[in-house]
């Protein structure tokens, strides 16, 4: 159990340290308390003994033995005194509060004697400490404090009438008082219990607090992360760890999330390429199966065409069969090429001509469906370098799709071609961005459309957070997180140095919202509108230097439109809105062809109102 939980280990370690510290503290505390109590008792006992000695001095001088014995018995039988005895020089108990002791001889080893008689020659005087002795006469009885008070020979003693003591004698006898330590011992014990209890309660409280903090700061986030790793290991790449804090575990959770994001992205790509690989296998299989019947059609029709020269009616029809079969051949080949991702065979060509060729091919199908085809072609279109067959395929696919979207009730397909110049907006990536103090704003850890995003910190009152902007110049799909609504008091700053990024006194010319600004090294300022969804940006350096010529073709229908949910994966293989009627390959192949021409294809659609496909092919390519 201890091995398996990091929180438990940490708690255990902390509690152990506290135990040692408080244990040592309690031990020394008890020791010092004991010492103080005993010293107090000793002081009291010494005073008492001195007092008694001087009290008895008068009776001694008068050698009033009865009075002395009487005093000793009286005082000695008080509760606080264990016994009082007086020894003479020979070791005989001459007075005692315990009458049966009187007249008994004690040896030099007796508790009251040995201090002075430790060495052969008896000591004349004792240090104060050495008067004292603590002993326990019976194993289960209370401890006793004994105090010896020597009675010294004084002039009044040897000049007294009784002439009992000669002048040469130094010590006449010893007053020995013993006091029970019952009360003191009880105090000491109570004191010990109190300290141990205090130590124990402090320990318990600290352990609980530490345990709680460890659980809150470490155990929970670790458990959350563990749960997340299990989820991810189990295949759930959409699982996110909630990032609550900025500490190391918070950062770990953040990097875990970004790792999962990348993993999900990689899996998506893998999935896509997997689909493409299976598309390739399928195409290869289909190619072989279809090419044989196509051979029969193509050889026979071309043979008939050769023989029907001079019969314009049949030869025109046969020409359509031959050229369309050749187109089929190119489609099959392009399927294989698409699977192999090879480059198209490009020649200079007129897009209008290709559109018209595509239109003739599906004319019949359109008229059957009562679809009117309106063409608005720019006659001054520059030639583009394209694989004419592939591009024709693109237009046929789009027009067939448009016709399918219109259905049997009839409608209009509009094909518009024109030459356009595209600015850098939407095509140029901002790769470096600096704040006023030249901190890098590009955050490589956060990507939008797999490009490192531009990060900024916002603050409104106490709310603060990071937002990320799409680095594609002119895009609007920024990740603004939970940024508060714009207005007074919203500040944008550099995440590193908090230098403001708001362009003072400027507003967006489109919507009047506040404007941010940052610097692209050597390429001037980029300004942009902060309002979500506005997307206004200005970058003079790029706007002036960049202008690319494109041929743009729009295929517009007034059919049923495409559901919003389908739009993001419209160009993926095996995506179809036609149910059983579609293979889901058409737009994938279309996308592949346009992409191979370095062009772009985009779609605008409104359900129930129609769809517009926009193809742009660079003129210079």
């Amino acid at each position: 159990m201890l091995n398996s939980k990091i929180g438990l280990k940490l708690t255990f370690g902390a509690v152990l340290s506290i135990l040692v510290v408080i244990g040592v503290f309690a031990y020394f505390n008890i020791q010092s308390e004991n010492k103080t109590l005993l010293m107090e008792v000793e002081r009291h006992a010494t005073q008492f003994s001195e007092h008694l000695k001087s009290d008895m001095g008068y009776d001694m001088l008068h050698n009033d033995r009865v009075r002395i014995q009487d005093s000793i018995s009286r005082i000695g039988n008080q509760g606080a005194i264990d016994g009082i005895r007086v020894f003479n020089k020979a070791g005989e108990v001459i007075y005692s509060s315990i009458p049966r002791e009187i007249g008994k001889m004690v040896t030099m080893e007796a508790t009251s004697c040995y201090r002075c008689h430790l060495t052969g020659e008896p000591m004349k005087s004792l240090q104060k400490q050495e008067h004292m002795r603590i002993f326990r006469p019976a194993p289960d009885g209370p401890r006793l404090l004994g105090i010896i008070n020597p009675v010294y020979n004084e002039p009044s003693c040897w000049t007294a009438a009784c002439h009992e003591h000669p002048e040469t004698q130094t010590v006449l006898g010893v007053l020995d008082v013993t006091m029970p330590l019952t009360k003191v011992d009880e105090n000491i014990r109570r004191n010990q219990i109190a300290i141990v209890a205090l130590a124990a309660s402090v320990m318990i409280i600290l352990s609980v607090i530490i345990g709680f903090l460890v659980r809150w700061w470490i155990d929970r986030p670790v458990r959350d992360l563990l749960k997340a790793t299990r989820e991810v290991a189990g295949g759930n790449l959409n699982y996110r760890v909630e990032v609550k804090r900025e500490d190391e575990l918070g950062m770990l959770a953040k990097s875990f999330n970004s790792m999962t994001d990348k993993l999900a992205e990689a899996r998506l790509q893998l999935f896509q390429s997997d689909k493409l690989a299976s598309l390739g296998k399928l195409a290869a299989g289909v190619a072989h199966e279809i090419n044989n019947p196509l051979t029969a059609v193509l050889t026979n029709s071309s043979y008939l065409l050769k023989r029907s020269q001079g019969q314009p009616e049949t030869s025109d029809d046969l020409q359509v069969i031959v050229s369309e079969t050749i187109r089929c051949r190119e489609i099959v080949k392009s399927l294989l090429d698409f699977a192999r991702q090879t480059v198209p065979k490009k020649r200079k060509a007129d897009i209008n001509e290709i559109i018209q060729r595509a239109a003739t091919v599906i004319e019949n199908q359109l008229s059957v469906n009562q679809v009117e085809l309106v063409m608005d072609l720019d006659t001054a279109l520059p030639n583009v370098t394209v694989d004419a067959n592939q591009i024709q395929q693109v237009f046929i696919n789009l027009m067939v799709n448009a016709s399918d979207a219109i259905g049997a009730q009839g409608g209009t397909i509009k094909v518009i071609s024109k030459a356009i110049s595209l600015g850098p907006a939407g095509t140029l990536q901002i790769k470096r961005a600096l704040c006023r103090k030249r901190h890098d704003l590009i955050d490589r850890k956060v990507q939008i459309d797999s490009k490192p995003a531009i990060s900024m910190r916002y603050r409104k009152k106490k709310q603060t957070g990071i937002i990320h902007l799409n680095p594609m110049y002119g895009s609007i799909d920024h990740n603004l997180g939970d940024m508060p609504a714009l207005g007074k008091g919203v500040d944008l700053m550099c995440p590193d140095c908090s230098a403001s990024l708001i362009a003072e006194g400027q507003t967006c010319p489109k919507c009047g919202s506040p404007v941010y600004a940052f610097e692209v090294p050597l390429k001037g300022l980029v300004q942009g509108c902060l309002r979500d969804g506005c997307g206004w940006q200005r970058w003079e350096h790029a706007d002036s230097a960049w202008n690319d010529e494109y041929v743009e073709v729009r295929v517009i229908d007034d059919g049923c439109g495409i559901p919003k949910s389908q739009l993001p994966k419209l160009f993926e293989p095996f995506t179809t809105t036609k149910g059983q009627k579609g293979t889901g390959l058409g737009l994938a192949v279309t996308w592949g062809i346009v992409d191979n021409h370095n062009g772009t294809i985009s779609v605008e659609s409104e359900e129930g109102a129609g769809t517009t496909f926009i193809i742009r092919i660079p003129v210079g390519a």
Partner: protein
Amino acid sequence: MKQLQDILVIDDEPTVTQAVAKICGAEGMLVTTAGEAFEALKKLEECKFRLILCDIMMPELNGFQFLEELAHRGIRTPVVMMTGYSTVENAVRSLTATGAVDYIPKPFTADELLTVIQRSLRCGKLLDEAESASLPRSGAMSYVPCPVNYYRLGYVSWALMEDKGTAKIGVTDLFLRAAEGINEFEFAQPGEDLLQGVPCAEAISPDGSKHIIMCPLSGRVLEVNAGAQSNPSLVERDPYFRGWLYRILPSNPASDLQWLSL
């Protein structure tokens, strides 16, 4: 003495053999068809053919095994391979296999088929003549073979590795002679990527037939020979030196060169 026929078509798809028979028949050629390789071998025992058209993907023996069998039996009739499964590998193998002189991907038009057949017939004839010419009493060579150090894709095109890692590619004299004169070439553009075994240029004969030149090496076109562009006859006069077609940057020379013969 075996009966002499013009063409033997082998394909497991009857519509294909019938169509070929019809087209070639209209041109006055004698055509025999076979549904699979063993049937073809039997017919080869009975008759002698000037050319064999053979599908690659067939049940029993496939096209390449059939070629081996021909070599094993010592039958030296030139073979044109055809396939609907026109991968680069199939194309390259078809051009480099023993006995194969050309390759045509399905589907094809009558003209494309006839162009390849005519060219292959002449190619077979030129090869025959060259063989007999190499005998001591022979006269002039019927065609100029590739110089040394030139890598050759079948009888179609050549590649010469240059010092700087680039390569020149061109078309063989045999191919040009078999095509019987070229009026015009259609070239790829500089910057385009070419794939080994895939068309890299078209040669147009005076009669309008288009001869597809298969690329010997994969790579990116660095330069198109301006001389050949302005003056197509330069290629015919000097196909190996001044009449090169492209200078390319090979993308995968190590594996490409394995397929080519020196």
